[in-house]
């Protein structure tokens, strides 16, 4: 088992064929393929504005999926991230309306995100409570807390400076897309080439072996959750600043969309394998499918069924592929 994991992770290994068959390539083909097919059926789908909106409106999901990928690679799961993003978006919106300096408005959600996730990571790693129990509990604490504090009020009259999403670099590249691309590249490089990044794979692949190699699986899990909190904070900012109002409730089923992006992006639910480039592509793919449904006259109410189906297909394919490889060796 561990040998398979190691051989899949060695940087620079494998030729063109391998690249061709990789999850990222598959996702890229799917994104282009769907664009062409749906475009043939309904050319309006290919309008620059629509394609731009797909990426722009869902960059926050891709950013949150980066952290989720790390969590899953480390052999854990987090279902509280949707609620956390709702809470952090509300916090930053409230601060902005209260007239707090913009830098604090942007930094506070990041800090709170890191703290909440680190706390969860510590409970999981040091008190040995399964991640699903901790994050399910936290999900309801955050969700219930948010609704009972705000009563689901909408936050309006946000100051102009708050809208991160309106900032465009060189007049063409919107900030959310830039952040999504930069975060993906940095996280991918860090996970692949740094010692602490490699420790995540080692912990998820085989925690005992990792410990014997001098990696602390517990500290790694806390670190992973802290980073996940940071990405959740960034995602919350992108989410909060893309509209003119913030509805201070938890976005429904957001955690499922984030988990779908991470899993469909090629992160193995058995831990130890995965890339954040894949999860970002998967986030774009899911958003593209959601938009495409409308253009081919299928009701958008089917989107959650499509997401669930995508997770199932990817997971089953991943497990069958591993089983075949194990038999082969």
């Amino acid at each position: 088992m561990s040998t398979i994991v190691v051989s899949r992770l060695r940087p620079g290994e494998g030729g063109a064929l391998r690249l061709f068959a990789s999850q990222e390539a598959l996702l890229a083909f799917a994104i282009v393929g769907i664009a062409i097919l749906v475009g043939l059926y309904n050319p309006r789908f290919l309008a620059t504005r629509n394609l731009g909106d797909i990426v722009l409106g869902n960059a926050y999901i891709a950013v949150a999926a980066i952290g989720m990928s790390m969590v899953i690679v480390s052999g854990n799961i987090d279902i509280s991230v949707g609620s956390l993003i709702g809470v952090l978006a509300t916090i930053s919106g409230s601060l902005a309306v209260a007239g707090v300096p913009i830098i604090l408005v942007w930094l506070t959600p990041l800090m709170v995100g890191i703290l909440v996730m680190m706390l969860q990571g510590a409970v999981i790693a040091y008190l040995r409570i399964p991640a699903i129990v901790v994050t399910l509990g936290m999900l309801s604490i955050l969700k219930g807390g948010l609704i009972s504090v705000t009563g689901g009020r909408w936050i309006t009259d946000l100051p102009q400076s708050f809208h991160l999403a309106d900032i465009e670099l060189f007049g063409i590249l919107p900030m959310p897309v830039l952040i999504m691309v930069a975060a993906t590249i940095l996280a991918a490089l860090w996970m692949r080439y740094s010692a602490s990044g490699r420790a995540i794979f080692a912990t998820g692949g085989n925690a005992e072996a990792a410990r014997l190699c001098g990696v602390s699986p517990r500290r790694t899990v806390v670190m992973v959750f802290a980073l996940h909190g940071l990405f959740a904070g960034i995602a919350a900012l992108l989410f909060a600043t893309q509209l003119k109002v913030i509805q201070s409730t938890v976005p429904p089923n957001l955690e499922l969309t984030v988990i779908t992006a991470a899993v469909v992006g090629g992160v193995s639910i058995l831990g130890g394998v995965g890339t954040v480039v894949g999860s970002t592509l998967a986030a774009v793919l899911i958003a593209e499918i959601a938009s495409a449904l409308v253009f081919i006259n299928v009701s958008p109410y089917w989107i959650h069924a499509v997401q669930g189906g995508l997770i199932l297909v990817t997971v089953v394919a991943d497990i069958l592929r591993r089983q075949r490889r194990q038999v082969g060796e």
Partner: protein
Amino acid sequence: MAVLAPEVRSAAPRWLIRHETLLVAILLVALVILGLFNERFLTVDNLLNQGRLMTEVGLLALPMTFIIITGGIDLSVGSIVGLCAIMLGYSWKNLGFPLPLAIAFAIGVGGVAGFVNGLLITRVRVPPLIMTIATLALYRGLAEGISQARSVRNYPEWFFYTGQGEWLGVPVQLWILLVGIIVAGIALDRTTFGRTLYAIGNNETAARFSGLPVDRVKLVVYTLSGLAAGLSAWVLVSRVTTTRSDMGSGYELDVIAAVVLGGTSIFGGVGTIWGTVVGLVMIQLLKNGLALTGVKGDATIIVIGAVLIASTLIASSLHGRREVAG
């Protein structure tokens, strides 16, 4: 293994007795305190009504106890409730099924949904957690897609008997839950099936090598979970008189919290139906007590979430030995 088995058997009941006595003691104290705070609380009417409200989650908690004892989990139960509720309304209104057939059909759909979970968990070896997260999305998505978020109303009067009627002065659905509790309790405690669940949870590989039908038993418990969700959906639709695709969402929290609070170990191998029943009653009384003291519905999930984490923490620190083994 021969050395391990008697040790486990002698250690588990002693710990269980302590855990359950403790729970019942806490329950009694809570009852008295809530009764003192509010005179409407300790009335027969209120308690029976709480029993009525508890049934939908209670029916799900019974098979969930089985599943968690085997070391698995089912996060999709709430979505199956939603799917079954929609299938009940849809098959009656849109497909023209007679209502009794629609009820049977909805429960059947629940069984199939649970069977699919069990099939992929046992045949493809998808971890239960990720399998049921996927179907949490999938089944809810099917409910939304099939219903197009339209609700179904105008059921005939007799249909409301299950959810609102009384038999011998006790809510009808409470009788269903009672039968379920007795059957599940006996099945877990007194049958080979029940003992197999503990064997799987304690050491699945050993259970397999002992010739126990591990996969078949797991398939059965996940299917039971789906069937219970179908039953729960029927009771729920009958109680609230309408069908919506978001029905049952968030139920997994209440169900898992009740089971874990009742002393079933999230690591598998330990747990009883009686514990789950006490856990259920505590969760329901907690909700009711908070509501009576003026806490709004949304805020109660904060408490339930905290109870879930805290009871797991306490159980695992009382029972540290299991962690090392796991």
